[in-house]
């Protein structure tokens, strides 16, 4: 069933919707002409597809401030990329640092290895304003820490973490810093080499404005990740040993060619509109929303104050109302799509005191308007008054 009613879509932290028409059109156009298995055959079309994919690796590498396009690895999403990264780095007796702000895509793989007794896991706390204190990070990152893996921005609070400072600490101590840039890629500049970041994990379908099913890793030349999945790569097929050569080392099986073309189109769309312009428009609306919600009696906003930089996410609750019910009312009565619950980041809610039911998250995208914010504020005021 396809719904034709207009909704105010505010779940862009889950996936941006709608996608720019230009992105979808370009993806279909390129896939219609080059949708073959890239680099797997000696026929021209396969070689052309491989060349195009390599161009996109260069585009992605440049976008994230990486150094080597052959170390751009495509995956299905950020969770897939993070699992490839974490499982390919973990060794017995490793000590790993992450944070209580992180998403389950980081916490669950780490928790699994911690529970198995393979690693020791140290989770950095965050303050009442949703930020990790660099001084606290300096204490948590010990001489025997094997790597640090951290979200760049909280998917619950939108708070952007001081990764440049944490990167300096890691660089001084020779410890790799791995960054989950799911919520920041396409909004804030990411300079992995400049910041001393050894790897970034990204997804294509959020603020990079591509389709679902595409994400990836960009690895710094100093970081080696073991393959944990094996198969056909189009290289060294005579050998039963999986190739050690990047990017195929971490890309067994046919890659998501249509998704890669869509990702490239998303990056080009962002570049043509200007990332700063898109971000600044989203942020302006998000500020209005945050301040407006803060002024409604009976609405609690987390955190109450904003810090720059920030990604356009606002978490809130209405006193005495189940967040799932609040989300249902917003949807059914007002046509507003917002995400209720724990947002796959249970420790954030535990520390905010919003567990186990969580809150309602409004997350903005490039196509939201001033009218959307007016309507949300009016709806929230009416709902709050009804209590």
């Amino acid at each position, binding site marked *: 069933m396809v719904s034709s009613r207009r909704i105010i879509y505010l779940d862009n932290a889950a996936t941006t919707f709608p996608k720019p028409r230009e992105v979808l059109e370009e993806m279909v156009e390129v896939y219609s002409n080059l949708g073959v298995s890239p680099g797997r055959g000696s026929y021209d079309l396969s070689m052309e597809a491989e060349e195009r994919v390599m161009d996109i690796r260069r585009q992605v590498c440049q976008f994230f401030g990486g150094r080597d396009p052959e170390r751009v690895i495509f995956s299905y999403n950020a969770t897939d990329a993070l699992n490839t990264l974490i499982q390919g780095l973990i060794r017995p007796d490793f000590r790993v640092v992450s944070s209580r702000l992180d998403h389950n895509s980081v916490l669950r793989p780490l928790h699994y290895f911690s529970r198995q007794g393979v690693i020791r896991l140290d989770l950095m706390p965050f303050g009442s304003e949703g930020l990790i204190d660099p001084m606290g990070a300096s204490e948590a990152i010990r001489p025997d820490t094997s790597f640090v893996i951290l979200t760049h921005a909280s998917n619950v609070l939108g708070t952007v973490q001081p990764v440049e400072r944490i990167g300096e600490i890691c660089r001084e101590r020779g410890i790799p810093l791995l960054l989950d840039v799911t919520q920041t890629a396409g909004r804030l500049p990411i300079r992995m080499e400049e910041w001393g970041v050894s790897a970034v994990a990204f997804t294509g379908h959020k603020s990079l404005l591509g389709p679902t099913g595409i994400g990836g890793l960009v690895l710094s030349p100093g970081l080696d990740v073991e393959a944990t999945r094996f198969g056909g790569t189009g290289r060294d097929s005579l050998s039963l040993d999986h190739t050690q050569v990047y990017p195929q080392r971490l890309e067994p099986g046919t890659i998501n060619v249509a998704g890669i073309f869509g990702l490239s189109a998303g990056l080009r769309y962002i570049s043509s509109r200007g990332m700063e312009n898109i971000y600044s428009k989203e942020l302006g609306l998000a500020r209005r929303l945050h301040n407006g919600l803060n002024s409604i009696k009976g609405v609690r906003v987390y955190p109450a104050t904003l810090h720059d930089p920030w990604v356009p996410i606002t978490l809130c609750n209405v006193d005495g109302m189940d967040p*799932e019910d609040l989300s249902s*009312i917003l*949807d059914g*009565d007002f046509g507003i799509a917002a995400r209720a619950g*724990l947002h796959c980041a249970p420790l954030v809610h535990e520390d905010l005191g919003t567990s186990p*039911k*969580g809150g309602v998250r409004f997350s903005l995208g490039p196509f939201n308007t001033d009218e959307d914010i007016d309507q949300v504020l009016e709806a929230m005021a009416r709902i709050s008054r009804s209590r």
Partner: protein
Amino acid sequence: MERTTQTSPARQELGERVRQIVGREITFDGEGFFWDPHQWSEEAAKALAEEAGLKDLGEAHWTILRFLREYYFQNGRSPLNRQIKEGTGISLMEMEALFPGGIKYGARRLAGLPNPRNCI
């Protein structure tokens, strides 16, 4: 009276338990939702409403509960938010206020339908 059951690990993980409600054994999940919508009866709904602090189910309550059940059995799934509003003529905001526990833990649970387990 309440007892746990010896069923599959998946159902145990969801906290399955059996209770006696108005003389009948009914299986619930850990959040108090009916496991089998066919075990529901108006008497069971009244008893569960009273447990939740709602002494009398009025006309508006029954309109909602009957709509939720009829839609479920006709379509094989629970109605969407906007379909509830269209089908009952009652806004979700009013519905939330009508049931102790609100929409999900009040209305949907008392209607005896399976737990709408969204990813939270």
